[in-house]
Structure formats: structure tokens, C-alpha cells
């Protein structure tokens, strides 16, 4: 199926500040509420608020939940494993960024 058109489908940048509810996250990622609550309990994603009804998540958390679900589905990870993998991936990203800026400072052309 191809949707052709000269205009193109309008899109918007997902801003850091956009908040969604617990239920919205579960529907968005098609996941069980207890599983998402488990991610929060592990500290793998950040929730603002103290009860499930009050929880609010940033759009960035929503993308993180989707990634967590792929890791579970494709690699068979459990919740602590997902939390560890997400932390390590964050650190890897930070190290890559640092490596790039160091290369910059040394004036290498890489």
C-alpha cells in the first residue's frame, strides 16, 4: 500500500515537556499495566506522582517503554535485565558522545 501525495503527512517533534498518563502509556505500547509499574519500580523509567492514577510520564519515557518492550520480546529479558540494559545503553551513548568531543578537541578528522 502506498500513500502518495505531494504534501506529505504532517509531523511534529516530540517535546521533552509533553506529559502522558499511565493509561496512555499502556495503550500506546500495548502492554500490561503491571509490567509498566514494574519498570517504574525498577527505576527504569521515571514517573512523576505517587499513585498510578497520579503518575505522569514524559514522551521520552513513552519511547523508553516501547524500547523496553522490544528488549523483552526479542531478547527475552526480565524487568531487572531490561533496567540494566537501558542503563548500560545510556552509558554507552554518553561515552560515545564524550569520545566524539574528545576527538574534536584533539583535532582528529574522524
Amino acid at each position, binding site marked *: *500500500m*502506498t*500513500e*502518495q*501525495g*505531494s*504534501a*506529505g*503527512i*504532517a*509531523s*511534529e*517533534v*516530540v517535546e521533552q515537556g509533553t506529559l502522558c498518563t499511565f*493509561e496512555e502509556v*499502556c*495503550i*500506546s*505500547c*500495548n*502492554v*500490561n*499495566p503491571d509490567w509498566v509499574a514494574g519498570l517504574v519500580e525498577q527505576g527504569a523509567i521515571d514517573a512523576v506522582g505517587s499513585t498510578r492514577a497520579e503518575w505522569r510520564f514524559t*514522551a521520552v519515557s*513513552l*519511547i523508553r517503554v*516501547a*524500547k523496553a518492550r*522490544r*528488549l523483552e*520480546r*526479542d*531478547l*527475552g529479558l526480565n524487568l531487572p535485565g531490561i533496567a540494566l*540494559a537501558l542503563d548500560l*545503553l545510556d552509558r554507552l551513548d554518553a561515552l560515545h*558522545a564524550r569520545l*566524539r*568531543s574528545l576527538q*574534536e*578537541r*584533539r*583535532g582528529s*578528522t574522524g
Partner: protein
Amino acid sequence: MDYKDYYKALGLERTAAQDEIKTAFRKLARKYHPDVNKEAGAEARFKEVSEAYEVLSDPEKRAAYDQLGRDWQAGQEFRPPPGWSEGYEFSGRSFERGGGFSDFFESLFGGLDRRGERGEPPFRGEAAFRARGEDHHARILIGLRDAFTGATRQVSLHAPQVDDTGHVVLRDRTLNVQIPKGVTEGQHIRLKGQGAPGIGGAPAGDLYLEVAFKPDPLYRVDGHDLYLHLPVAPWEAALGASVRMPTPTGPIMLRIPPGSAQGRKLRVRGRGIPGAEPGDLYGVLQVALPPADTEAARKVYEEMARALPFDPRAGLGE
């Protein structure tokens, strides 16, 4: 279509036990998972091993695949034998993993295995028979210049869809997507209503695209900022100069202050990726030495050696 050697894809012999198949898949999946490995080719390799595992991990499918025989070579032109799949009952196990399996897989197992079951029951929220569709996620690769001007780019997606008979099939879908001006690497853009269809008349989910830039020959991107290696002559760095520097929106004249050293970063405010708070462009000075390949050039270097009390290794001690 090409024959696929699923054993080779997992690095296994045809005699491998089910446990070995699982272990081989787990190892390769961890290595090539697109969320873990951002290198080019990783995603294709992950799909290849997922497809191989989908077949070899299921004793029914494995038996059917083995029945094709040992004489096939990977990449060889393949057509399913007549009467293929008769007598085999494939259990309806869903595979949304990776998505977009090969034509070879489709010809052998397509249409038999699409019952639309999911690994887990969808969460339906309050209303039992009305549910907003799931959001989908994919990645989009754009040029740096697209972020400056905005652009329309085509994205090809494999997405599960329900066909007329109620089976879930994977369809290729091409969307023309407007890339908003000012988007930068690692950001996500949302396409409303382009995710999975809703149930019972509820709205469709959204499609999220993670933005990545194609490598640019001139500029390195860091958030909204850009870095450019700017070669300068030793006298331009030492005495100061005004030099022509490219920017993504056209060249400018950049003032080099006198006494600039190698690696000095000169900021051009607001010439990075545009936005509410536009990024900056940094010219990183690279002092280029003129070759001493003529008598005149050698004379100048000799003159400098005599006239300048300069020890480049003064900082090394001893």
C-alpha cells in the same frame, strides 16, 4: 527468490539440538538488536537471525524446512516444491518480532501462520470494545540539510494489517513524511494516526520516528550545535585574519583573532540547527603547514628558526 540457509544464519550444523538453536539465537540477537547495535547492517542481520529462529525453534516448521533437503545453497534461486505445506499443521504463533520477513519465508510459511494472535492480551483500558490503536516506532535517516530547511521524505515500513479474511498480514507501506525544520538527531517525530488501527471505532495509534542524520562530509552534529574543521595558515592563526567559512545556509566571513592556537573553537552564534533556541556553529581551527618544497619556502622556515625563540616541547619537562 533466493533460498535462505537458516542454519548458516545462526552458525549451526543441521544436526543442532533445540537448546543450541536457542543459545545461538540469543547470542546473535543480543549482538545485533537494533536498540543495542546502531551500526549499519545490524538491523538486517537481526532480521535474518530472527527469521531463522522463527523457523528452527518451532519443531513443525523446522521439520518442514529440513524436508526441502540439504542440497540448497544460500542465495540459490528457489521455488517451493509442488504440494508444499500439505500435511503440515503450523500452530498459529504470532511473530511481530522484527517484522518484514523474507519472500522465501513468506512462500513457505506465509498465510499459514497469521492468526493475529499476540504474545500478550492487549490492554483495553476502561471501555471494553473500544480501544485506541497501538503506537508504532521506526527510525528515519535524514540529511543534515533537511533539518535546516524541512523536507518531505519517503519512509518504507512493514506493518501488520488485518486482511479481508481476518488474518494479520505484513504489508509494505510507503509514507511521505514532512520532516519539521529544526529537528535534530535522537529526537522523535510523531505522525498522528499512522500507528495501528483502533478497535471499535476508536482512533488509530501514532507513529513515532526516531531521527538519525546521515554522516555529513563537513559538519559534526552535537545536539543543536555543529562543528566544522576550519584549516588556517600559521600566519592567519598568529596574526589574525578574516577567512571564508562555509555554513549550511551559505558562506560567511569569520574573524580569526590574533594569537589563535591549534584547536581553538570559534563560535558563530545561531548558525547551528534552527529552532526556538537555535544551535551554534563552531569553527575548530586546524593549523595547516605550508610545505617546504621550494628554495623560497625553506628560506622562510630557516629565518623563523633563527628569529623565533620557540620551544614546542617546553611543556614536556626535563
